[in-house]
């Protein structure tokens, strides 16, 4: 467990010292969302209809962009070899890194999401479900993304490849994330969708660190 906290503390410290990285992800989230009114027109009712989905899709893309640096730096400077050789359980090390990634990208995205939803005229009853859905869904995004990020280490075209590997696996999260917002807007309880998102998060929490560890092991071998 101590390895988990020390990795978490290290990655958080690194992220704070290079806070531009996290800010870039949030900035991408904002600019990508702002493109939509230009694409579909500024009518408030059209935007309100698509707001939940747009915020979710752009949040997924923003998270995807940030995955690139999850393991790459450690892989390039040899830290990753040391971590694998350290004899500590690799899945805990992975978990520490993923939690740090979620705190530095997932949480800023959640905080930013209502501001962007305002610009898209999301009706008032949609905000809480949107944020709750992101809160429950983004851990899965980070966990599943970590598997992909570990698999593409050392490839020539990592970033593009990563999106091909990971985006199909995000579809269930996207479906239930937007369904939670939609349910709230139509006056139905969003709780079932949020429960499913929570279930996905638990499932990802149990399986993904393990798969990521296997992927990292073969990457440094």
């Amino acid at each position, binding site marked *: 467990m101590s390895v988990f906290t020390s990795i978490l503390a290290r990655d958080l410290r690194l992220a704070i010292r290079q806070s531009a990285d996290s800010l870039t992800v949030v900035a991408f989230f904002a600019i990508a969302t702002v493109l939509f009114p230009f694409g579909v027109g500024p009518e408030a009712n059209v935007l309100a209809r698509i707001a939940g989905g747009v915020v979710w899709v752009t949040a997924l893309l923003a998270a995807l962009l940030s995955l690139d640096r999850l393991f790459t730096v450690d892989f390039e400077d040899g830290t990753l070899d040391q971590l694998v050789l350290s004899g500590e359980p690799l899945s805990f090390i992975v978990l520490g890194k993923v939690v740090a990634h979620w705190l530095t990208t997932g949480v800023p995205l959640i905080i930013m999401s209502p501001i962007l939803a305002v610009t898209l005229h999301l009706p008032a009853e949609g905000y809480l479900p949107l944020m709750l859905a992101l809160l429950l869904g983004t851990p899965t995004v980070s966990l599943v993304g970590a598997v992909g990020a570990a698999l593409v280490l050392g490839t020539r075209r990592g970033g593009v*490849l990563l999106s091909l590997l990971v985006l199909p696996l995000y579809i269930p999260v996207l479906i239930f994330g937007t369904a939670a917002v939609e349910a709230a807007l139509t006056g139905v309880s969003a709780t079932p969708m949020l429960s499913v998102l929570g279930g996905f998060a638990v499932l990802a929490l149990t399986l993904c660190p393990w798969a990521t560890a296997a992927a990292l092991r073969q990457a440094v071998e």
Partner: protein
Amino acid sequence: MHRFANPTQFMRIANAIYPWVAGLAVILFVVGLPIALVTSPPDYQQGQTVRIMYIHVSSAWLMMMIYGIVAGGSAAFLIWRHPMANLVAKASAPMGAIFTGLALITGMLWGQPMWGTFWVWDARLTSTLILFFLYLGYIALNDAFEDSERGDRAAAILALVGSVNLPIIHFSVEWWNTLHQPSIMKLSGDGVKSSVDGAILLPLFLMMGAFTMYYLAVLVLRLRSELLAAKIRNARMSQVAVDAAVGQPAE
């Protein structure tokens, strides 16, 4: 099982079954295609377009079976480091992608006369499309590395992650679809099912058998060429080593 980790042993059996599966594929196509495309009766609702089904369902069957083979081969490769299991998975994946593409294309061509549109976000179409992307991801990851062995292992892990996710994706999409789309699709989806009788079932089974035999035959050919390519690579490497030792430029 470990006996077949030896390529020579494995290929001895593969080569032995090759004439049989290739011959069966030819026979089944020769018998099945005319029955399926000409002599079988048209459907009372769908008319002649029902003949697309014989290609469509056979492709869909293979796309699922091949994903099972890719995932199973990847598991055997990761657990026992079974080299031939990996080779089978790697050689099967492009064919799986092609049959998924065929299932999608024939489905679209069938959809136009039946549903009046090439594409609907029906649950089955959507999960097939996602399966297509999973295949593409597997293939792309497999040859993204300079070191082909790393590509093998990374792609094998991806195949397993994908196989855990497939049911989740499938049920999510199904649920999403029932939320968004009432029952237009169900009608023709079940229309096929309920009108299945012997006259349609026989050519369907013939075509599915033909497709499966065709897959097995091409799989053996692909395995052969993979092993030959590996041999050529090794021969080249040792040639370079010999040239370097003798002091001649490797030309």
